[in-house]
């Protein structure tokens, strides 16, 4: 086989693994960036944090929010809830950033799997 083609095909294997590992990292990030509270499931998004922050700014202490399954869930202390959401969001986003950054430096299939 032409050396140039051989090299490109070998690199394509690496790219497949790289893209797959990135996808799996993202799935893990989405899985972990969730707040389970009072039997409800809230994916922690910028939109949710903004909305809860708005309620807190308007001096609201409790609220009924629809969770990911459209189940109404009572949140008794909105300010605490907002703090928890932000903790979950930033902890997981930082972890995701570190792993994503780490994976960029790995130049072999074998090392990609250690992230």
């Amino acid at each position: 086989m032409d050396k140039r083609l051989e090299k490109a095909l070998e690199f394509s294997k690496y790219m497949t693994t790289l893209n797959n590992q990135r996808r799996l990292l993202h799935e893990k990030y989405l899985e972990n960036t969730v707040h389970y509270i009072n039997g409800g499931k809230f994916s922690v998004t910028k939109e949710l944090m903004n909305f809860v922050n708005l309620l807190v700014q308007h001096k609201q202490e409790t609220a009924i929010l629809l969770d990911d399954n459209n189940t109404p869930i009572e949140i008794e202390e909105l300010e605490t809830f907002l703090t928890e959401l932000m903790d979950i969001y930033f902890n997981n986003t930082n972890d995701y950033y570190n792993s994503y950054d780490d994976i960029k430096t790995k130049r072999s299939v074998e090392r990609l799997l250690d992230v």
Partner: protein
Amino acid sequence: MTKGVLLFASNNPQVDYIKQAIYCAKRIKQFLNLPVAIATPNGDYLTNQFPFYKSYIDKIINIEATNSNQVRRFRDGVYSEKRLEWNNLSRADCYELTPFDQTIVMDTDYLICNSHLKTVFNTKEHIMLYKDYIDVGYNRTNTGLDMVSDKSIPMYWATVFYFDKSPMSQMFFNLVKHIKENWNFYRLTYQISQGNYRNDFAFSIAIHIINGFEKREWPKTLPGKMYLTVDYDVLYEAYDNTFKFLIDNTMSGNYSAASIKDCNIHIMNKFSLGRHIDREFENE
């Protein structure tokens, strides 16, 4: 309210589901810290062969050995396959068998790697399970795991599910039993070509019936996500909650590598899982 995990294990001549169950229970203890019960016709084998089981399994429920008369293909990667007996008929009895008020049932080849599932006990739902899954394989579209059959209904997974002791749950499992007893009728109605009874299919059909033969949002999905590898894939290394696989993306022997960490995973290649467990049990 008592809470716990119920496992089912029925050995065939080549796959040691009891060994898998003890390893599964070990991980349940580590990440969920819940009592574990095992329903099995192989209780003597369990106690004699694995004397350390008491560290991980809290209760043995002896069930009668049934001859399912079912044979299916078990692969160990793309190059090795065996046709073996498949005993999977007890799952529908979980409502009567469970010693817990709130129960998670899981396959013994489902490995717990985080504590997400523990939050299920706070729910007001009576039954929860997964419909969606994350394939560790890359862009693999030909696994046939999304639908019960090409033109019928979406597949729900009986691999791991939650239920409570409510009339709703009882009705659901009674319906699953009815489907099991009339499997040929239901499999033909839902255009399932394979003759073997499969819990995933029976659960999916029961959900479709209870939903008034429509696609609805019941039942809700379990906390966390279910990752899976198929039996064409090979688990080749595991450490520190990291699992490394050879993944057959095209299911034709064209392998690439993938790994996951801290994610609950359903490993369908029982043989490579068995080899991993043997290494893990060396120090027990």
